[in-house]
């Protein structure tokens, strides 16, 4: 089943067409890879699906509902979470607090009470609310093996852990789909190895994962399906096997041979 798709999505910055008429599909429960050379438009496509940028034309559908012009916080609340290519942690907050912020809207929503009542309650019972959120956040830190860093400032975490914390924070929003923008960037081989396991464990939680990645070993290993962008266009999609043998993809990566 398709949970997210774009229809002829185009994003132009002045004369630069970063994404051009892309039909991108994400299937439920799978790990989808999004690859392409530098500047191919991968991050731009992510931004346009998560409300941080607005397409010049085209549409985005999530579970059949159009979300094209929705703001980022709305889209997150619908069940789409993400990380960023240039890590965007809340640097001066503790590791734990970063995850607690991820839990923000889940802990604020109470179907029985309505938002204002829930907000007032969370203020009146600030200690109870804190403890409950604290506990949930610790669970996510345990999932990533970051418990020991709970009270460190996020900015003091080693680089690889910062990437993991960003994923933990995103997962805390309890998403159906998780977008990862180059999660392995800057990681050493052993960190990348453990990241691969983590991504599989995330999939096993029932979360649909979409990842942009330049590390081909990682992509070919864990993706069920891969979409390739080049110069803003969707030039191929298929299984890792199909992508590996696709002429156009090989050309895109190796450069067209001159006649």
């Amino acid at each position: 089943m398709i949970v997210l798709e774009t229809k002829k999505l185009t994003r132009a910055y002045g004369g630069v067409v970063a994404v051009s008429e892309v039909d991108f599909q994400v299937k439920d429960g799978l790990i989808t890879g999004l690859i392409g050379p530098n500047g191919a438009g991968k991050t731009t496509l992510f931004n346009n699906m998560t409300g941080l940028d607005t397409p010049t034309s085209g549409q985005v559908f999530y579970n059949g509902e159009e979300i094209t012009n929705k703001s980022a916080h709305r889209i997150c609340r619908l069940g789409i979470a993400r990380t960023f290519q240039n890590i965007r942690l809340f640097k001066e907050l503790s590791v734990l607090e970063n995850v607690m912020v991820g839990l923000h809207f889940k802990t604020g929503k109470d179907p029985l009470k309505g938002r204002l009542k829930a907000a007032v309650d969370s203020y009146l019972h600030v200690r109870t609310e804190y403890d409950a959120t604290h506990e949930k956040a610790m669970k996510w830190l345990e999932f990533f093996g970051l418990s020991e860093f709970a009270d460190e400032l996020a900015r003091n975490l080693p680089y690889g852990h910062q990437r993991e914390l960003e994923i933990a924070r995103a997962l805390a929003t309890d998403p159906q789909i998780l977008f990862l923008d180059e999660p392995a960037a800057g990681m050493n081989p052993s960190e990348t190895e453990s990241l691969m396991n983590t991504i599989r464990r995330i999939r096993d939680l029932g979360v649909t994962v979409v990842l942009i990645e330049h590390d081909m070993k990682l992509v070919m290993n864990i993706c069920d399906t891969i979409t390739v962008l080049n110069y803003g266009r969707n030039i191929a999609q298929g299984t890792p096997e199909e992508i590996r043998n696709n002429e156009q993809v090989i050309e895109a990566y190796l450069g067209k041979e001159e006649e």
Partner: protein
Amino acid sequence: MINFILLILIYTGIYALMAIGQNLITGYVGLLSLTQAGFFAIGSYVTAILSVTYGIDFWITVPIAGILAALFGVVIGLPTLRLSGDYLAIATLGFGEIVRNILNNWDSLTNGPMGIQRIPMITVFGMKISPYAKWGFLVVVWLFVLVAFVLFERLANSRMGRALEAVREDEIAASSMGINATRYKVWAFALGAGIAGVAGSLQSTFILSVTPGVFTFMVSIMVLCMVVLGGMGNFAAVILGAFIIQFISYFPQLVGLSNIIPPQFKQILFGLILVTMMIWRPQGILGRKTRGEPAIFKRRGGKK
């Protein structure tokens, strides 16, 4: 002499309220707004007009002053909060001046530059709290500070407080975590304005009169200084900041040198304080409150 120290402490209290509001806006959400003078003025005039013209009791005018200032906060906040950094500072600075101009010129309501005199004293259980005797007034003012401190400290440790800090740290990441950044900024602005309005109420019953001349942009600058000096993101620290700044500004009078040291000395000094702190100790004297489990929770024992 003791009277003079009491005076400084009373002003410390009144300004501490404004600094607490400023701290929510600047320390927590990271918005450089310079509006406190405007909201302070609105609060002062609400109490002055309601109590003098309509004979309404001080205690009823306080919530009205707070709510009205907060509403103005929303009205000012909605359009200006899209701006960032210096632009926000300039736009909000303009607001304070507009308020002062209106107070100066809306004669039928505010009595123009003459202001409003003969504001009734606060009464508690039929007892008059005279600003001349000072002790009683000091207690009233610091009760307000205590209540505001507890309420805001609690807010800062709630999920809203975390959301505000997330917005300060990275607005884009915060909105990608489902946080409606604009909504929270406006809330912070409204609350910060509201408490400045309450400070205004106290001010008018302390001076027993209001004139537009009091609410210059220097007031906003002083409040900002208090926050920067004490420590952004730390409510106890900004109260300390309020004391230091008040002490400095009354120092010439305290030592009887007010006819030698010109009043402009204050302004130069505040400017210097802002710049030196920004360069040498941007976190302020006490610095941001430490992370980890909030102290107010620990003290109450609880589990763990």
